[in-house]
């Protein structure tokens, strides 16, 4: 009887596989370092004194260089608590409107047959291709007329308008895949169309709502353009604008600059740590359909 042997052919192919795996990791690891190192560098140096920042920028803070001076300056000079509050209000309120109104519109478009249904869907979706910023000139005029300049409401309305097209697009696509039976069943159970939406459809689309939420959120939280133009007063500044202007004033105080940056980065990273799975799932599923 023949015992199987490991032939030379098998050995080289195994070697090739191992070296292939190694180079895959080398590339990925290399790029991962490039992606996170700058962020890490800024955060690390924000915990040093001036000497530490300039003397040994690449080493971790230690007893000789550790300092919270930068943070002290930021907290005493800037009103970051207000900025955070503003960013939070604007982001949460816009998200709520985008998701709730977007879901309602998507439900109507996906569920009912009526005249101009297809046309209306296209109308709602072209906004994906046409950036809302191009209307800035008229948006500012409109906000002046409505007396909304330097209010958070101005930002909320604009961001809602900006976020609706993508939300309507993704949600309609998803709602088309919902079983018709379950809505019919609710109808037989005697629910009104409103309650079908609230009690049957919304719970069913919760996972997609979450992903639409996480990735409508990023551009809102990070936007510089509209806060600068519509709400640059001290009381309505968002974090992004606040940091931008704070750094503009404190360019020579590197400790404060680094601390301000870190303060702006941290909450984003924290949220990302919590929701990265959902975010990535969202981008992934959206892309498969799109």
């Amino acid at each position, binding site marked *: 009887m023949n015992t199987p042997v490991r032939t030379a052919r098998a050995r080289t192919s195994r070697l090739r596989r191992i070296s292939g795996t190694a180079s895959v990791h080398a590339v990925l690891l290399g790029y991962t370092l490039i992606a996170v190192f700058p962020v890490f560098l800024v955060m690390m140096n924000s915990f040093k004194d001036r000497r530490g920042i300039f003397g040994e920028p690449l080493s971790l803070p230690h007893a000789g260089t550790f300092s919270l001076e930068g943070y002290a300056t930021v907290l005493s000079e800037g009103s970051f608590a207000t900025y955070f509050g503003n960013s939070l209000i604007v982001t949460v309120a816009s998200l709520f409107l985008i998701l709730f109104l977007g879901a309602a519109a998507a439900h109507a478009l996906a569920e009912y047959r009526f005249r101009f249904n297809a046309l209306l869907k296209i109308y709602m979706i072209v906004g994906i291709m046409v950036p809302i910023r191009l209307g800035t000139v008229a948006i500012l005029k409109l906000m002046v007329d409505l007396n909304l300049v330097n209010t958070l409401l101005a930002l909320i309305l604009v961001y*809602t308008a900006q976020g609706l097209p993508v939300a309507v697009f993704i949600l309609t696509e998803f709602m088309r895949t919902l079983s018709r039976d379950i809505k019919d069943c609710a109808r037989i159970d005697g629910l009104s169309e409103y309650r079908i939406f609230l009690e049957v459809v919304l719970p069913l689309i919760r996972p997609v709502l979450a992903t639409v939420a996480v990735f409508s959120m990023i551009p809102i939280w990070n936007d510089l353009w509209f806060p600068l133009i519509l709400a640059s007063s001290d009381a309505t500044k968002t974090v992004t604008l606040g940091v931008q202007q704070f750094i503009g004033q404190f360019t020579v105080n590197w400790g404060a600059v680094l601390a301000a940056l870190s303060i702006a980065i941290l909450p984003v990273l924290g949220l990302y740590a919590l929701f990265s799975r959902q975010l990535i799932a969202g981008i992934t599923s959206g892309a498969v359909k799109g």
Partner: protein
Amino acid sequence: MTQTATDSAAPAALRRRRKRAGRLHIVVFLAPAVLIYTIFSVYPLAESLRLSLYDGLEDGSAVWIGLGNYATLLFDPDWARQFWNAFSNNLVLFFVHMVVQNPLGLLLAALLSLAPRFGGAYRTLIFVPTLLSVVIVGFIWELILSPLWGVAETLLGAVGLAGLYQPWLGLESSALVTVSLISVWQYVGIPMMLIYAALIAIPDELIDAARVDGLSGFAIFWKVKLPLILPTLGIVAILTYIGNFTASFDLIYSIQGALGAPNFSTDVMGTLLFRTFFGQQLQLGDVHMGATVASMLFFIILVGVTIYLALVQRRLQRYEM
């Protein structure tokens, strides 16, 4: 049996009326979204297009001048210089993204789709810069590349290339490319994710079949996977194009200011629009010229989207998977 759930006490006529009240709910569901979108997105855009056809007078009223503002923008030496400079800078920006960001995104996605160990961790970390505000990214790189801090020089020194160091952001010759690369660093996560999603959506059976047919890993990528993800690459290209003309403002405004320093070498359509609309040191802001620049941007984007839809999308046939 007691009264059944469905035997409602309402007389038939009443029930009939309830049913007839009928289709109001469709309006209720649609109206809020359609109104907000129309008032704050569609109307302003239309209004901008309209404003671009007028000129402002001293007394605050406006007069219709047809395409006069466009003529000014394109042919008045002062305006034309700025416009073409910003436009060509945008093209450079777009070009850098197309040749660096998207191929890099494709490479990373292809490697990730092999499901290496820690793939999830790599993916999550590489996406981190994409989440950060452009403002923050801009400052981070300004600090790192700053000759004052010297971090970039030290790092280059570590690989024996200290001599190559230049204050890239400050030099007219290199500022635009440097800004572009910073933007690539920030946004490479998006093409990576989109392409990765498309790659993992390819059914395993298809890959297995190709393997059984004797294709090597590399050949499978070129001959099977790439054709299947072409529609996604098309989407990535058009997203890059749109983002390039509008989103580039934030980064350049935070690093180089509204003037596109040094000496307008990084001026793009976004900063030009901002300056035109709000004015700069000596020049007053001009609503009508601002609207004209915005409208030009709109047409430029429209041309891109049209080309994409007409040409690319029709050619890049989708395969049912």
